[in-house]
């Protein structure tokens, strides 16, 4: 359950705040008292979210170094960063397009890593800050058609473990959440290439049934908060038991 004031006087940057997961996480953190800065590519949606949540916002393209630098310059000192932006091209490798693979690795892996670099260089992360990167069950479970996406998320997790070690002396923590299929924009987008029947069959592999964005948001809240102060470099599955087998 959420606790008002859990993040009192804390500033959290939520990247990918216009996506289904990012928006749910921002809402959840707001309820728990966090001050928010929202980042995303869709300016109209971002503005609407920021109005709703009384948050600061900056629309920037984090796949470009200029966009990342702009965001890192604009934010104040941060207690937390959530990276929830992502793209999921679905294609068997023999029909994988160069541009889709590039975009996938760039948005899912390169952007969070280089944004972290820019925030660190500009000393925008407080001692004791927490970073949470949204990964996926795909990082550890093979699925036909998901080579690009799975590779981008596995690389993200590997980078998180290394960064966690680098930042431990400063008390800054880095963790990933590996959600299963959640009813959000990205799941919808993936579903465009997957028949409804196949999606239904896939959901049967979740012992606790389908997940909701709030299920991931509460996990993000935990990993951002001092409640998880002794957890770093971890990959937390939030998948209704999908990865048990």
């Amino acid at each position, binding site marked *: 359950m959420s606790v008002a004031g859990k993040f009192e006087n804390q500033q959290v940057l939520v990247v990918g705040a216009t996506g289904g997961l990012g928006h749910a996480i921002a809402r959840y953190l707001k309820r728990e008292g966090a001050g928010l800065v929202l980042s995303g590519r869709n300016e109209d949606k971002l503005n609407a979210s920021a109005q709703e949540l009384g948050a600061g916002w900056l629309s920037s393209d984090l796949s470009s170094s200029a966009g990342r630098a702009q965001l890192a310059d604009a934010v104040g000192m941060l207690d937390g960063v959530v990276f929830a932006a992502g793209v999921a091209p679905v*294609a*068997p490798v023999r029909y994988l397009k160069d541009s889709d693979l590039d975009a996938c690795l760039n948005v899912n892996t390169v952007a969070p890593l280089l944004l972290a670099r820019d925030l660190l260089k500009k000393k925008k992360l407080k001692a004791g800050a927490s970073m949470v990167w949204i990964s996926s069950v795909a990082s550890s479970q093979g699925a*036909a*058609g998901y080579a690009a996406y799975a590779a981008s998320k596995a690389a993200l997790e590997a980078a998180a473990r290394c960064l966690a070690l680098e930042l431990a002396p400063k008390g800054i923590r880095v963790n990933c959440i590996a959600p299963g299929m959640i009813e959000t924009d990205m799941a919808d987008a993936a*579903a*465009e*290439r997957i028949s*409804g029947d*196949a999606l239904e*069959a896939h959901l049967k592999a979740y012992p606790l049934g389908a997940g909701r964005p709030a299920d991931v948001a509460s996990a993000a809240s935990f990993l951002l908060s001092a409640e998880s102060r002794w957890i770093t470099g971890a990959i937390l599955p939030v998948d209704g038991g999908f990865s048990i087998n």
Partner: protein
Amino acid sequence: MSLEKFIENFEEAVEDIEPGSLTAETAYRELEAWDSLAVLTVIAMVDAEYNVRLKADALKSCETLEALFALVSSRSES
């Protein structure tokens, strides 16, 4: 952009289809090899070869390969 080439691409995309075994009249959704991976693969093939992004629903709306080709052609020109 020809129907013949499209059928050839389709045969190549879907596993276990003999080259030259399909025609314009083939009801592709009734093929034994037509499963969820075939759906995903044909969508990806159409994207890669014709730069047209189809949805899974679109594949359900056509009966024959000729109809599917017509759909892809119409999207490709627009």
